[in-house]
């Protein structure tokens, strides 16, 4: 592998907005579950500690002064914090909107009513990985399915916008049709999103037992494309098998037809998060993204958010990522898909290779095909 491309090759820092539009906040390092594929836990480089209420409120005041628009509260499990209402009030007071990513198991009617009453919640995303307890609880723990569904019902009763994230793994791919029926037909959700267990956090410990193998991945892609068509776009994804099926299908068709390069193709364009979003770990360390958790940029209430956002060399190097050609990487040598490839997620690339400015091996179509995978070809993409 060639050396990681350094910032010195990009002497002019990219133009950035005055401040991030949104901030992802890992509001706690605690969780009432211990899911086998959690991206958050078991990162040896991370100090899993919580800040007290006042420290977060001081930070939310700074976000308000910086005209940040949205805060996404995640963790850990945000609802383990007893002071969550006070923290949400701090967000609301500073003229921001919020979303919460949750396992759903601790949400009751009182909490749902509080969230609804703020009028500022874009959504609460609840993880549901099965149509029944067996596939869900297999990785998330006994009783977690029933509690998550109860949480969704509480949110719906109070009129909170609920989104569901389905993480695909080896124990639930054969349940996909039932999961879609449960979420869309029975729970009457507008839509749900999908992803898959990836080589991050806890999944690095026993990922081989949980993550999709090549044949599982092909099957998941095929089923999800069918279901997304059946439910008319109400199943979406920005990562995982459904997103891969769509991009890879387009790439395969383009290569077959010797089409012009994609406008975003041939360079590391797979992520634009650093153009508008920043993240903060539970211990207060500012990081580029929750998937780059050990890439510390500064500390809240000590370092100026604006200073970090505008001038961090690490962040600016990530922002220059899209200028890096895939032809610079030995990993991509001889690949016919380069004109159509984005290199995908820097977080996953970092976890797998130790370099964020590298294509993600997990998202390599050539590799997938060489290992026996098949991509369902969609038309009209």
């Amino acid at each position: 592998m060639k050396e990681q491309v350094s910032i010195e090759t990009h002497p002019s820092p990219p133009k950035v907005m005055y401040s991030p539009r949104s901030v992802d906040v890992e509001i706690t390092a605690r969780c009432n579950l211990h899911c086998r594929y959690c991206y958050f836990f078991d990162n040896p480089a991370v100090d899993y500690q919580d800040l007290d209420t006042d420290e977060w409120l001081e930070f939310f005041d700074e976000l308000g002064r910086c005209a940040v628009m949205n805060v996404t509260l995640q963790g850990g499990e945000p609802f383990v914090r007893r002071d969550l209402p006070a923290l949400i009030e701090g967000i609301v007071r500073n003229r921001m909107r919020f979303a919460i990513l949750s396992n759903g198991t601790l949400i009751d009617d009182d909490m749902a009513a509080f969230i609804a009453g703020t009028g500022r919640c874009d959504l609460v995303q609840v993880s549901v990985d099965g149509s029944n307890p067996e596939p869900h609880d297999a990785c998330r723990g006994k009783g977690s399915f029933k509690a998550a569904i109860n949480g969704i019902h509480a949110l719906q009763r109070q009129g909170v916008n609920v989104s569901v994230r389905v993480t695909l793994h080896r124990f639930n791919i054969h349940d996909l049709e039932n999961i879609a029926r449960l979420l869309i037909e029975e729970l009457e959700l507008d839509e749900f999103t999908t992803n898959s267990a990836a080589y991050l956090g806890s999944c690095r410990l026993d990922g081989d037992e949980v993550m999709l193998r090549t044949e599982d991945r092909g099957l998941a892609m095929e089923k999800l494309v069918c279901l997304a068509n059946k439910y008319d776009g109400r199943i979406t994804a920005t990562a995982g098998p459904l997103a891969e099926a769509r991009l890879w299908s387009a790439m395969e068709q383009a290569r077959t037809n010797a089409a012009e390069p994609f406008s975003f193709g041939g360079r590391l364009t797979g992520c634009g998060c650093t153009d508008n979003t920043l993240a903060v770990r539970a211990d207060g360390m500012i990081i580029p993204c929750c998937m780059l958790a050990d890439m510390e940029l500064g500390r809240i209430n000590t370092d100026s958010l604006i200073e970090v956002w505008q001038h961090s060399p690490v962040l600016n190097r990530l922002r220059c990522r899209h200028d890096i050609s895939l032809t610079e990487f030995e990993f991509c040598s001889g690949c016919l898909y380069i004109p159509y490839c984005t290199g995908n997620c820097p977080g996953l690339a970092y976890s797998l290779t130790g370099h964020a400015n590298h294509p993600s091996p997990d998202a390599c179509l050539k590799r997938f095909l060489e290992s026996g995978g098949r991509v369902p070809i969609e038309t009209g993409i």
Partner: protein
Amino acid sequence: MTDHNMPIANPLVVLREEFDDWAILFNPETADAMGINPVGVAVWKQMDGRHSLEEIVDDLGERFSEVPDTAGKDVAAFVNQLVELGFVGYELKDSGR
């Protein structure tokens, strides 16, 4: 009774200045957002309930070159649009009754 000549910005609305003096107005109550150019930003900053539309237009003439003759009409239309979105209002004044 309202003073329809002195617009006042909704204090909940956030002015987010981004690139090259362009900005976003964001209402966190409704999630409505609207992109505005540097002239819009200048107008927004004058909507404090103490400046009439005429004064705001005059101020533009001092800040920007080549202000068109239609500026008064354009600013009024812009302010009306903001009023419809709930981004701007007019101060209620005591009618004395």
